[in-house]
C-alpha cells in the first residue's frame, strides 16, 4: 500500500518533469529554436564534460541548503520566504570574515567562513522570527520586505565598506587563496568544489533531525497542530522561531557557498542570483522531502547552468530557466491536487493549522463534524 503510494508519487514527479519539458519545448519553438539543438546544447552544458558537470553539482549545493531550510520551516508550520535576504546577509558576513582570513590555515578559514555565513543568515532570519513572535507580524510579509532591505544593504556594502576592486567596480577585493573552499584538482577548471559533500550530508542530517531527535519531534508537533502542541507542553512559538532561525542559517551557509565555492572569487551585489526563491521551488518539487530535494536541486542547477549554455550557443534568453522554474511550481501544486484527489495538500493542511497571533493569518484547525 505504501509502495503503491510511492510509485504514484514518482509517477507524478515524472509527469511534472515531462510537462515542464513540454513547456520549455513550446517556448523554444515559439522563439524559433529547434528543441533537439537546444537539448544538445543543454546536455553538453550541464553534464557533457567533467568541467560542466562539476559546475552543475557545485551550484546545486546552495539550492539544496535553501530547500532544506524551507523544509524545516514548513515542518514547524511556518512559511517564510526570506531566503534571498538571508543568503545576502550570510554572504556579506562571510565575505567580511573571509577577507581577513588570508593568513590562517585553510581548514580554519573554511570553518570560520562557514560559521560567519550561518551566523549572518541566522541573524537576518532572527529579525523575521522576532517580528513574528513578539510583534505578530506575518512572517511572510516581513521576510519579503527584509529581502528588499538586504538587497540594498548588500548593494551598499560592495560600494562601501567591502568595496575592494581596483577599478572601482561594485565588488569586494579578491578573496585570499587560503579562504577559498577547496575543489577537486583533477577536473579542468576546478569547477567541482568539495562542498558537494554537503548534498548528502545535510539532507541526511535534516532527515535525522526531524525523525530521531526530540527537537525535530517538537518541531513536527508544533507544525502539525499548534493547539495540540500547546496542550502537550510544547511552545509552538519557540519552535517556530527556532525553525526560522535555523532555516536562516542554512540560507546563510548557502550564501557563503555561493561566494567561496563559486566561479568568481569576490562578492558582487548580484551574487544571490535568484537562488533564494529557486531553493523554495526545489523543495516544492521534491514535495518537501529532504532526500528528494537533493535530486531536484541538481535538476534546478542543471536548468540554470544549461540555460546559460543555451544562451551562449543558441542565443536563447537565459531567463528561460526562471520561466521553467515558475512553471514547475505551478505544475507541482496542480499535481499535488491530482494526487490527493482534491483533498488538502500537506502544506494546505499546515496552513489550516496555522493560528493567528495579531496579524498572523490563521484558521484554527477547523474540525469537521460527523
Amino acid at each position: 500500500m505504501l509502495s503503491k503510494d510511492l510509485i504514484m508519487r514518482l509517477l507524478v514527479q515524472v509527469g511534472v518533469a515531462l510537462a515542464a519539458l513540454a513547456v520549455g519545448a513550446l517556448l523554444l519553438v515559439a522563439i524559433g529554436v529547434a528543441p533537439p539543438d537546444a537539448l544538445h546544447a543543454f546536455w553538453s552544458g550541464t553534464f557533457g564534460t567533467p568541467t560542466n558537470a562539476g559546475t552543475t553539482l557545485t551550484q546545486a549545493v546552495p539550492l539544496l541548503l535553501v530547500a532544506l531550510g524551507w523544509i524545516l520551516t514548513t515542518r514547524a508550520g511556518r512559511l517564510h520566504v526570506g531566503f534571498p535576504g538571508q543568503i545576502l546577509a550570510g554572504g556579506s558576513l562571510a565575505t567580511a570574515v573571509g577577507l581577513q582570513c588570508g593568513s590562517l590555515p585553510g581548514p580554519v578559514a573554511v570553518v570560520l567562513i562557514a560559521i560567519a555565513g550561518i551566523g549572518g543568515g541566522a541573524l537576518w532570519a532572527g529579525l523575521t522570527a522576532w517580528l513574528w513572535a513578539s510583534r505578530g507580524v506575518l512572517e511572510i510579509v516581513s521576510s519579503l520586505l527584509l529581502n528588499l532591505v538586504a538587497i540594498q544593504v548588500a548593494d551598499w556594502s560592495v560600494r562601501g565598506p567591502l568595496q575592494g576592486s581596483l577599478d572601482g567596480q561594485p565588488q569586494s577585493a579578491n578573496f585570499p587563496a587560503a579562504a577559498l573552499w577547496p575543489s577537486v584538482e583533477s577536473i579542468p577548471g576546478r569547477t567541482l568544489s568539495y562542498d558537494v559533500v554537503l548534498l548528502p550530508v545535510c539532507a541526511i542530517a535534516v532527515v535525522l533531525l526531524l525523525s530521531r531527535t526530540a527537537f525535530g519531534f517538537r518541531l513536527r508537533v508544533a507544525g502539525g497542530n499548534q493547539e495540540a502542541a500547546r496542550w502537550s507542553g510544547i511552545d509552538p512559538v519557540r519552535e517556530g522561531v527556532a525553525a526560522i532561525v535555523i532555516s536562516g542559517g542554512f540560507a546563510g551557509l548557502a550564501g557563503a557557498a555561493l561566494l567561496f565555492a563559486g566561479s568568481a572569487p569576490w562578492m558582487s551585489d548580484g551574487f544571490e542570483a535568484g537562488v533564494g526563491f529557486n531553493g523554495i521551488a526545489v523543495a516544492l518539487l521534491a514535495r518537501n522531502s529532504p532526500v528528494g530535494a537533493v535530486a531536484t536541486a541538481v535538476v534546478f542547477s542543471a536548468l540554470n547552468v544549461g540555460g546559460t549554455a543555451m544562451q551562449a550557443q543558441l542565443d536563447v534568453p537565459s531567463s528561460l530557466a526562471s520561466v521553467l522554474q515558475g512553471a514547475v511550481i505551478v505544475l507541482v501544486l496542480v499535481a499535488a491536487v491530482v494526487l490527493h484527489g482534491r483533498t488538502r495538500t500537506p502544506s494546505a493542511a499546515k496552513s489550516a493549522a496555522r493560528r493567528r497571533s495579531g496579524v498572523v493569518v490563521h484558521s484554527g484547525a477547523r474540525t469537521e463534524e460527523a
Partner: protein
Amino acid sequence: MGIFDVAFLVSAITIAAPILLAATGELVSERAGVLNVGLEGVLLVGAFGGYLVMAGTGNIAVGFLGGIVGGLLFGVLMGVLAIETKVDQIVSGIALTLLGYGLTAFLNDDVFSKPRAFDPLPRLAIPVLSDVPVLGPALFTQDAFIYATAVVVVVVALALTRTTWGINLKATGESPVSVDAAGVSVRGLRWAGVLFSGVCAGAAGAYISIGDVGVFREAMTGGRGYLAIAAVLFGGWRLSGLGLAVAIFAVTDATQLRLQAVGDIPREVWVAAALLILVALGTRRVRSAAATSRLDRRRASAAGLAGLAAVAVLVVLAIVRPAVTLPVSLWLAMPYVLALVALAAEGKRRHKAPEALAVPYLRSEV
C-alpha cells in the same frame, strides 16, 4: 519650503498611485479570503503586458488594456490555484512571483532586442481646480491614471459599505459558511475578488512601465507589490488605514528620491520626522485611553518614552544640522524599513485579519 515643495508632492502622488491601486485590489481579494502574496509578479506581468501592447499598437490606452489583460491572466491563475484546486495560497503566491519575474524577463529578452521608450501619460489639468495654489498643481494637474485610481478607491469604499455585494464579500472572508448558507456563492465572490485584484494590479503595473516612465526593465516594479501587501496589513484590512499606509510609504520614497540628489540631510527632514513621531504618539495616546488593559498601558508608555526620546534627538539634529550623508542604497531601503517598523509598531492589533483569510472553503465544513 526646501525640499518639501510642490514637485515633491507631485512625485509622492505619482509613487503612491500604483501602490494604492494594487493595494486596493489586494484588499478586496483579502476581504474575500484570498491572500495573493504573488502581487509583485502580477504587477510585473501588468507592466510588461502594457509595454508589449503599447509597442505593438502605439496607443497608450490600448497599452493599459494590455496591462489589465496580463494582470487578469495571473488573477485567473491565482483563482484556479487558490479557489478551484485549493492549494496553499502562500505557495501559489510564491509561484506567481517566480513566474512573473521569469516570464517577463524571458519575453522581454526575446521580443525586445533593443529597449524602447514611449511618452508617458500626459498630465491633464482640471479647469478651475488646477489653479488653486499648491493643491492645484499637486492634485489636479495629474495624469488620467491617478484620477482613475481615486475614482476606483472611492467606488470600492462605497461598494464595501453600501452594497449587498460588499457585505457579501466581507462576509466571505470572515465566515464563508454563513455566506454559503445564505445561498450566495463563496466561489463566485472569491473569484470576483481575485479577478478584481488582478485587474487593479495589471493596471498599476502598466502605469509603472508605460504610464509613468515609458520603458520596461526586468524586475522594474522593485518591491511595490510587497509594499502594497504590507499596506493592507498595516491598514488593518480597512481602506482608510490602507490609504494612510500608502501615503507614508510614498512620502518616504519621495523623500529619499529627493535626498539622493541633495546629499546632506536638510533640516526639514529632521523636523518632519519629529512631527511624524509626535502625530503617531498622539494617535496612540487617544487609542490607549480607550484601552483598559494595564499591560497595554505599560507598553504604551514605554513606546511613548522611546518616541519622545527620538523626537528630542531629531530636534537636536535639526538644530545642529550635522553634515550627514547616507549612501543611495540605504536611502532606497528606507520605505521597506519604514514598512517593517510600522508593522512592528502596530503589534498585535485590534483589527484582525479576516478570519477565513488564506483558508480554502470546503463545503463539508458546514
